[in-house]
C-alpha cells in the first residue's frame, strides 16, 4: 500500500518535472525546427553575425576573468570573516539580480556618461564607456557578478575550517593557506560560479543596450533584426548564437567535471 502511494506520488512529481522541462524546451525546439537550413548557413556566413558573436563571447569571458580577481578574494572574506553589517553587504551583492536590467543600465549610464562628474573625468583621461566594448563589459559584469561571488562564497564555506587551522599549525602563512588549501578545495564551486556569471553576462540585453547599442552584441543584434525585419530574420541569429553558447557551456561543464548548473549559495 505504501509503495503504491509513493509510486503514484512519484508519478505526479515526474509529470510536474516534465511540464517544467517542456516549458523550457518547447520554444527552443520550435525555433530550431522552424528555421530554414539555408538561411541558417547564410546567417552563419555573415560577417556581421560572426563579428557580433565573437565579440560577445570574448567580452563576456574577459569581463568574468578580470572580475574574478576581485570576486574570489572578496568571497573568501565573506565566507570566513565576521564583520559589522555583513548581512547588509551580502544583500548589496544580490541587488543586480533583483533590479530590472534596463534600470541597471540607466544607473550605469548615469555614472559613466560624460554628463556625470566621474564620466567626464574618465573622458578627460581617455576612457569612455558609452558605446564601447569597455561599456559592454561593465554592463555584463554588473548584472552577473552575484553568480560568481555567491557560488565562490558557498565553495569557501564548504571548506572545513579544521583544514585551514591544520595548515596554519603546519606552518603555512595565511596567503599560503588560501592558495594551497582553500582555493583548490573550493575550485569546483568557483568554476561553476565563473561559468554561470559568464553565461549570464553573455546573454545580457537590457543593461548593455542602454550603455552601448553599438558595437552590437548578439542579443542586441537579434533585437535589432527583429524590430527592423521581423521574426524570420531574427530567428537564424538566435539559433546560431544558442548553438555556439551551448558548445562553450558543454566544454566548461566537461572541464569542471560536474554539473555546473548546480548554482549554490544564491539568496534572494
Amino acid at each position, binding site marked *: 500500500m505504501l509503495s503504491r502511494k509513493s509510486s503514484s506520488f512519484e508519478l505526479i512529481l515526474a509529470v510536474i518535472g516534465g511540464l517544467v522541462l517542456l516549458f523550457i524546451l518547447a520554444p527552443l525546439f520550435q525555433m530550431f525546427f522552424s528555421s530554414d537550413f539555408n538561411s541558417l548557413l547564410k546567417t552563419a556566413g555573415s560577417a556581421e553575425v560572426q563579428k557580433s558573436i565573437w565579440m560577445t563571447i570574448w567580452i563576456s569571458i574577459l569581463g568574468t576573468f578580470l572580475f574574478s580577481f576581485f570576486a574570489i578574494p572578496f568571497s573568501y572574506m565573506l565566507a570566513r570573516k565576521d564583520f559589522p553589517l555583513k548581512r547588509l553587504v551580502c544583500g548589496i551583492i544580490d541587488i543586480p539580480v533583483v533590479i530590472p536590467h534596463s534600470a541597471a543600465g540607466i544607473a550605469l549610464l548615469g555614472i559613466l556618461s560624460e554628463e556625470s562628474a566621474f564620466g567626464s573625468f574618465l573622458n578627460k583621461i581617455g576612457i569612455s564607456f558609452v558605446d564601447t566594448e569597455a561599456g559592454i563589459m561593465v554592463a555584463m559584469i554588473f548584472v552577473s557578478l552575484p553568480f560568481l561571488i555567491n557560488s565562490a562564497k558557498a565553495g569557501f564555506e564548504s571548506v*572545513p575550517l*579544521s*583544514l585551514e*587551522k*591544520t*595548515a*596554519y*599549525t*603546519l*606552518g*603555512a*602563512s595565511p596567503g*599560503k593557506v588560501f592558495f*594551497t*588549501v582553500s582555493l*583548490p*578545495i573550493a575550485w569546483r564551486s568557483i568554476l561553476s560560479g565563473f561559468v554561470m556569471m559568464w553565461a549570464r553576462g553573455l546573454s545580457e540585453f537590457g543593461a548593455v543596450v542602454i550603455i552601448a547599442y553599438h558595437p552590437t552584441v548578439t542579443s542586441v543584434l537579434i533585437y535589432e533584426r527583429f524590430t527592423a525585419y521581423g521574426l524570420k530574420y531574427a530567428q537564424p541569429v538566435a539559433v546560431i548564437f544558442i548553438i555556439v553558447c551551448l558548445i562553450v557551456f558543454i566544454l566548461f561543464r566537461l572541464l569542471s567535471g560536474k554539473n555546473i548548473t548546480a548554482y549554490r549559495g544564491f539568496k534572494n
Partner: protein
Amino acid sequence: MGKLKLTNISKKLGVFKLEDISFSLETGDYFVILGKSGSGKSVLLEIISGLITPDKGRVYLNEKDITAKKIQKRNLGLVFQNHSLFPHLSVKSNILYPLRARKKMNADTGKKLETLCRTLGILNLLNLKPGTLSLGESQRVALARTLITSPECILLDEPLSSLDIQTKAEIKTLLRKINKDSDSVKSEPQTVLHVTHDYEEAISLANKIGVIENGSISQIGTPEEVFRHPGTEFVANFAGIKNFFRGKAAETENGISVFTPYMNNIPANISFYISGNYRNEEDGNLIIKGENITIANELYATSARNTFKGKITDIENVKSGIEVTVKTNGLLLSSLITKESLNNLNLSFDKTVYISFKANAAKFIK
C-alpha cells in the same frame, strides 16, 4: 627538548570558559587531559598551538614564552580529531606539506620521509588520495605529517575516538612507540599532550593525567594517583577506581591469566586470576570495580576465582554506598556494599573478612 608549560591560562568564548589552567610537561612526558566533551579540552589545544589567543596566562615551550608567537613559528604539531588530511593532495604531498610551507625541503627530505613512513607503516600509501584511506591509515598519515617537522611536542585531539577496537590497539602501540622513541621516529623521546574523554586511553598511555572539569583542571597526577585517590567527586564519578594496580599479566590457561600487581615497583606477594590470554608477560594496569568485590565473614565455596583473607582498614560513606577497604597481603582492595550489608555482616575496623571477585570482573588494560 620538549618542555611545555602553561600558567594560569584563561579564555572566555561565549558562555564557555577556561579558567586558570596550569600544568607542565617534561621532555618525553605522555600527558593525557581527561574530560567530558564540552569541558574545554580542544580549546586548550588550540590555545597551545596558537589558533586561539588566551585572555590571560602564558604558554612556555622549553622555558621560552610563546604566548604571542605566530602559529607558524611554534614548533608544535596538532592532530585534529577528524585527522584533517587535505583531500586534494596525495598522501605524500600531505606529509610533505609542512616542509613545503616552511620552505624546509632539502636533500635529506626523501630519506626522512621514507624512514618515517616505514615506522608508521604507510610506505605503500604515498601515492593514494586521503579519500581512499581507512580511518586508521588516515590517523597514521596525520601523525606522519605532524612528525616530519620534528615538533617539540605533539598535541592530539581525541586521536582514538573514531577507530575500531583493533585499529585503536594498533594506534596505541604506535603512540607509545612515538613517545618512547623505540624506533627512530625522533632521536629523543617525544613529548605528547593527548586529550580524551576515555579513561581507558588515559590509563593505557599516560604517565601523567590532568582531569578537566567545567573549564578548570581539577586534578593532576600519575594514573595511580588520579584513579585511586580522586580529588573531587567529579573525578570519582567519572573515573574513580580505587582498585587500580600496575602489574604484569602472564601464564594463560583456558582463557584465564594470572596478574601480579607491583608494590613499589616489585611484584607483590599476591596474584589475581583475570580473563584473557596473555601468554607473553605483558605490563599493564588492572582495574576492578568496587561493586564487583564481595565481602563475607567466613570462607565458603564460590564460583569466584579470587578469594583472599584480609583485615578491614577503612569504612567510608560514599555517594553510591559504603566503601569497605580490606588489606590483604599488603595490598588494599575496596569493596562497595550497601548499608544493609554492612549491618547484616556486622563489619567493623580490624575485623577479619574474606573478599572475592570473579576473574572476568577484573579488567586488564595494556
